[in-house]
């Protein structure tokens, strides 16, 4: 597991550069197991930086609103590094403005799964890695849970536990934890059209159009979101199954070739809508149809801005 001291030292080294505005890292949250994004701008603050299996946030989402000219540092896990590559490819931020600290991550804990197994008191909590298990200490009592049972689903299939891009790496390089086989998507595809609609109708009925999924997404940064345009108004502001469905279809479409499956949208959704089931479908399709992967190589071109003359042409008359 990544040691906090090693991470803090790397951050101090970065802050020695005079033109660094701040470093994006994590610190302890306000209750229980929480961690929170932390903008380190003074040297005295570095000692509060941590990295634990509860560092869930994808810090790259804060880069999308970065307009200043100074440099920034950022701590990224494997999944976050893919979002960063995608943002750099889209020219959101130049590579030389970033000091990237990669952190090898063996999986982060899903709070929903955790809440079913372990209660969360206000204080006195700790969690450490022990081979393929996590050891939770709650008010003195220890409990061991296998990693596979409590990490996010995305972590079980993670192919990039070691970040793909970094200036400094904290922690040892880790071998892939699993293979992305899109089994959930493939299982869902087997349903009939009616059953598929029944499922999604139930899910989109819950949607309250808070747009948290959009705001937390590192690659959703349109200056004027299509959903907020009034002239022409594509999406009415009323909340019903028709508008909700179109919102989700459009967002999934706008993420085609750009979503790197960091899972933040599903984590942020207050109504527990399985957004990754939707986004992963698009990811699987573009991989099969166009042999395209988002956020894996620098300088790759955007999916929907390029074409091959022999692109697949199903049922085009």
């Amino acid at each position, binding site marked *: 597991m990544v040691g906090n001291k090693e991470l803090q030292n790397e951050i101090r080294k970065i802050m020695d550069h005079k033109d660094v505005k701040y470093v994006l890292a994590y610190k302890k949250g306000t209750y229980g197991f929480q961690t929170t*994004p932390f903008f380190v701008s003074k040297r005295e603050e570095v000692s509060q930086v941590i990295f634990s299996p509860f560092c869930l946030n994808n810090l790259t989402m804060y880069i999308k609103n970065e307009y200043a000219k100074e440099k920034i540092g950022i701590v990224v896990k494997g999944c976050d590094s893919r979002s960063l590559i995608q943002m750099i490819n889209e020219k959101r931020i130049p590579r030389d403005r970033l000091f990237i600290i990669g952190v090898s991550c063996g999986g982060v804990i899903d709070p929903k799964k955790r809440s079913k197994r372990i209660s969360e008191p206000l204080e006195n909590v700790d969690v450490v890695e022990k081979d393929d298990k996590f050891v939770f200490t709650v008010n003195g009592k220890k409990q061991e849970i296998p990693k596979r049972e409590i990490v996010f689903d995305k972590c079980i299939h993670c192919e990039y536990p070691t970040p793909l891009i970094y200036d400094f790496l904290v922690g040892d390089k880790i071998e892939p934890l699993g293979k992305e086989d899109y089994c959930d998507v493939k299982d869902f595809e087997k349903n009939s059209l009616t059953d598929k609609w029944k499922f999604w109708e139930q899910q989109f009925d819950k949607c309250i159009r808070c747009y948290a999924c959009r705001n937390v997404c590192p690659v959703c940064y349109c200056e004027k979101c299509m959903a907020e345009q009034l002239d022409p108004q594509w999406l009415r502001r009323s909340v019903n199954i028709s508008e909700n469905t179109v919102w989700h279809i459009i967002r999934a479409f706008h993420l085609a070739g750009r979503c790197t499956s960091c899972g933040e949208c599903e984590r942020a959704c207050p109504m527990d809508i399985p957004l990754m089931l939707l986004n992963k479908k698009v990811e699987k399709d573009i991989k099969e149809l166009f042999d395209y992967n988002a956020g894996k190589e620098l300088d790759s071109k955007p999916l929907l801005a390029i074409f091959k003359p022999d692109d697949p042409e199903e049922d085009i008359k």
Partner: protein
Amino acid sequence: MIIDKNKINAFINQIISDHIVFAPVKNKDMVLFKQIKKPDEMTLDYNNSRIPPKSIYLPQTETLFRFSKNQNINLETPKKDGRTLLFGIRPCDAKSLKILDQVFTGEYKDSLYLSRRKNSILIGLTCHNPSLNCFCTSVNSSPADTDGLDVLLTDIGDKYYVELITSRGGKIVKNFPGFKPANKEDKKKKEEIVKKAKDSIKRHIKSERLASILDSIFENKYWEEIARKCLGCGICTFLCPTCHCFDMQDETAGDKGARIRVWDSCMYPEYTMQASGYNPRPYQMNRIRNRVFHKFNYLPKNNQVFGCVGCGRCITECPVNIDIIEVVNQAREVKKDE
């Protein structure tokens, strides 16, 4: 009074026969207030609903009036709801409805809100196991607060202890034969449970002189530091029982249409965007500061009531752990503006 737990279903059946009944309904891992037609659709084994019951009186999407044009222009206002009853609401949410009342039935009476609220009966359920982020005791409430309720039930084992708070509540209870007088044991048990619940609330905000402390740091950089993390997603406002900002839109399809009212959020930059392009709250810092002030400064000053009922939903659901308890408590440590 008391009622045996095995009589509750029959009680619910009776009120369903002449009221529209809303109760907590389980939806996988979360609970939402939905209309029920049978008592077994309801679950009382829950901490609090994901979306507060304000959604029943102030629906997320509501028609203000309809219009259509064939020969002439016709204008139509929607019909009013029948008698509604909310069963199993928590004391904090009931208190929040009283705060909404001040907004929607104050100087200007919102007829749509009133039509739902006027004939609505609230039967509450004491919290015997408050959540980690509950802090109702810091904002003039408690797990067994009766403010805003007509009847309050407390789970004391195989029965509920029943408190009649208003005459409306009394009427409902008297119509059902299953309610019996309580004895000293029952009352003692109830008081023990309420005390245990109050003691289990670990998080508090210091509320003395809060409004004036906030006034003294209005221009402080403190708000910028908090706002840095904020995504502006609006989850806190949508799940807050007292938040009530709304927008109005006209929707048309051919020759007919309607003016509708929808929930909006002060966390979005568009909320205060003016037609000229000027935005009086241009940065997230302005918007977060406004929200905290609305709850702990403007409403206390103008309406003598906290704008927050301590339900903790915003803390639990915020994706970046912006914690209103910390924000308010840390505000005291901030060096005051010159």
